[in-house]
């Protein structure tokens, strides 16, 4: 699709969006718009840029206010609304006309809008552009889908002519604009990915080019004093992930094998949703649980550790990833063909032998993928380690799982949480993005590998 065609496809969608938004507002809010300034209470005070303003009054030498303009606009919009309600078709030309009217209205009320939101000029920056694209994408998509549901009159009857055989022009036009809007929506995710990489690399580059690199390999993580020891964060992340995997791999795999190979359909019907519910529990709740229950009941009972320590955090993260391993591994087991099991049974092997020596090896790549995804999730888990990891905002390098320390994610959360109150060294803010980039690259690598494995197994069977 070339650029001009893409624009030609998307433009009617955008104009249709503007028209539909204005149409909706004008039809729904017509009664309030008719009221004089100040008399309509809530809406006038909330949305003066739309209802109460005097911009237009200035342009028309005090004869009209926005309210009147709005009233006129709404009256105009009644025409297409009536046409649509009667099931008449509304061609692209009409849509363009109403879209243009809506945009002119928006421009006329622009300065009032900017006043309302205390914006001195039109906000043009990378961030606003990003937000604008996401919001425009959502609006265009919603409008496109809504427009797709509008009734059309079908051309019926009459003799068969060349024109009739060529198809209904409006119908084909609608096809084109809808596919354009949907393609725009699909590009939004690419846009988000690009924005993530852009933000991370931009700030991380500042950090990497300005920091003294000896301080990135020193006693510990004291970002406000300029010590950014990455090994501290990486080691504690590895400790937490290791403990989590020790807990979660046997449990998750056990659940997957039992549900897939042994459980009766009735038990499966009950147990599977319950495991899914465990997956849906917010991590902040598991952080509470790890700090206030797992730590005193398991860790502190057998050691002298503080309440917050890496072991408790690891146990908590383990609970986070059990359902993940269970569901991905179960999918892998379920995709092993039934014929393999029957062949093994036919050769006289027992259930356990079939499971361990036939089904598990056949599903091994999927199970490996489950573990990789779980490691990546454990690396990126934030709230559990931040709450139960036992360090507020600084950490000394440690290898002891009973100490408290900061993982990569916890360090980011603590830095961001404190940026309001404590002003650190010049690069404190940038170090956040540097750690973030590191985490992003690691998890992305793991996910790419795992996805490839999953994809390959899916093709195999």
């Amino acid at each position, binding site marked *: 699709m070339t650029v001009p065609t893409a624009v030609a496809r998307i433009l009617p969608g955008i104009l249709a969006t503007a028209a539909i938004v204005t149409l909706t507002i004008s039809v729904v809010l017509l009664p309030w718009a008719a009221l004089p300034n100040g008399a309509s209470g809530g809406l006038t005070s*909330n949305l003066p840029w739309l209802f109460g303003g005097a911009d237009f009054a200035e342009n028309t030498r005090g004869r009209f206010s926005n309210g009147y303009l709005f009233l006129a606009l709404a009256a105009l919009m009644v025409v297409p609304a009536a046409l649509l309600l009667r099931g008449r078709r509304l061609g692209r030309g009409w849509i363009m006309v109403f879209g243009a009217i809506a945009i002119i209205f928006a421009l006329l009320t622009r300065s009032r809008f900017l006043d309302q*939101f205390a914006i001195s000029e039109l906000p043009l*920056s*990378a*961030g*606003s552009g*990003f*937000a604008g694209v996401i*919001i425009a*994408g*959502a609006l265009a*998509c919603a409008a496109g*889908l809504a427009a*797709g549901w509008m009734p059309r009159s079908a051309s019926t009857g009459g003799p068969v002519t060349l024109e009739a055989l060529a198809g209904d022009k409006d*119908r*084909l036009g609608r*096809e084109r604009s*809808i*596919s354009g809007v949907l393609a725009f*929506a*699909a590009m*939004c*995710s690419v846009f*988000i*990915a690009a924005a*993530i990489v852009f*933000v991370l690399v931009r700030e991380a580059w500042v950090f990497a080019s300005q920091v003294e690199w000896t301080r990135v390999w020193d006693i510990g993580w004291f970002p406000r004093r300029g010590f950014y020891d990455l090994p501290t964060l990486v080691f504690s992340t590895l400790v937490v992930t290791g403990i989590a995997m020790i807990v979660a791999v*046997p449990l998750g795999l056990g*659940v997957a094998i039992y*549900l897939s190979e*042994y459980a009766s359909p009735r038990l499966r019907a009950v147990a599977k*949703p*319950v495991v*899914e*519910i*465990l997956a*849906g*529990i*917010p991590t*902040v*709740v*598991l952080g*509470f649980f790890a700090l*206030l*229950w797992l730590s005193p009941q398991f860790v502190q009972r057998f050691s002298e550790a503080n309440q917050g320590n890496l072991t408790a955090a690891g146990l908590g993260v383990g*609970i986070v990833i059990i*359902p993940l391993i269970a569901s991905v591994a179960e999918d892998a087991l379920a995709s092993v063909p039934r014929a393999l099991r029957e062949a093994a049974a036919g050769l006289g092997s027992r259930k356990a032998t079939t499971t*361990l020596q036939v089904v598990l090896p056949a599903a091994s790549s999927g199970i490996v993928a489950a573990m990789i995804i779980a490691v990546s999730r454990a690396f990126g*888990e*934030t*709230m559990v380690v*931040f709450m139960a990891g036992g360090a507020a905002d600084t950490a000394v390098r440690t290898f002891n799982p009973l100490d408290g320390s900061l993982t990569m*994610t916890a360090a*980011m*959360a603590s830095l961001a949480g404190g940026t*309001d109150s404590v002003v650190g060294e010049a690069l404190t803010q940038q170090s*956040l993005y540097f750690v973030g980039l590191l985490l992003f690259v690691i998890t992305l690598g*793991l*996910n790419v590998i*795992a996805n490839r494995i999953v994809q390959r197994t899916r093709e195999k069977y």
Partner: protein
Amino acid sequence: MALGQVLDPRTAARVESEIFKRNSDIRGGIFRLLLQIALLVTLLTLAVLLVDVVRDGWPVLSTRFGDFINGTLRSQSKDPLLGISQGLKGSLWIALIVAVLAFPIGIGSAIYLEEYAPKNRLTSFIELNIRNLAGVPSVVYGLLGLGLLVGPAARFTGGRSVLSAGLTMSCLVLPIVIITASEAIRAVPDALREAGYGVGATKWEVVRDNVLPYAAPGVLTGTLLSLSRALGEAAPLILVGAVQGRLGGQQGWFDPVALREKFTGLPIIIFNWVQDGGRDPGFVSASAAAIIVLLAVVLLLNSAAILLRNYFENKRG
């Protein structure tokens, strides 16, 4: 006896006992037991978690439910006005923004990828990209919000505002919406589409009248799950700058001006009170009570999604 005629008597006896012996597979039994223990421990963890939270939080909810829901953030846990209304409001707005932004884009993308997209490199790149986005840690999305929406776009979003948080959350749940909706659309039998084309419908008419009605329960499941994810995530909110102390100057519940104001969310309140629990133990039970409220909402959404999916799976066999 048939075996006796073919085999010598000793072998026949051995084979017979191997066949008819009961409980002979001890190792298999142990393996099965271990698997059962794994399942039991997992389910028990969930039960202990729920019991622990309810035991800690119930006294607060049962004695002063209304005040707790309507109250605000306070510095003392004994304050009778302590409550979670600000967090509820923030989370509600975030959920609303997610519903407005992420759902149309997500469902639209899924329709495009499954029905419209040509099989070429661009399409497979978009699909790969979405799968990878789904695996990006939530805290990195927080950085996206902090670096792009809070800073450079402050004039539009108002900085550390609920609008920034909602936009960030929308990006976070978008891949989930797309993936679940794609799966639902992929599961629609081709015969339905062909029937539509057969009577002369255009592509969009087939999607609208044949594909989407069939896929609707699956799509709805995905939206419910992503909504519950958006309500429960705390890490991106911390990075975007949810207020972790007291929060003043509050507008009404549905005042759009509040979009550009400072905010807090229910998960942030929980996190905050757990930290305050060190100096004032009363905050621990307040935090547990807030967890009960959050879990009630999140688990309701999740179980609705799971039940809905199971119901339609069974119905269609």
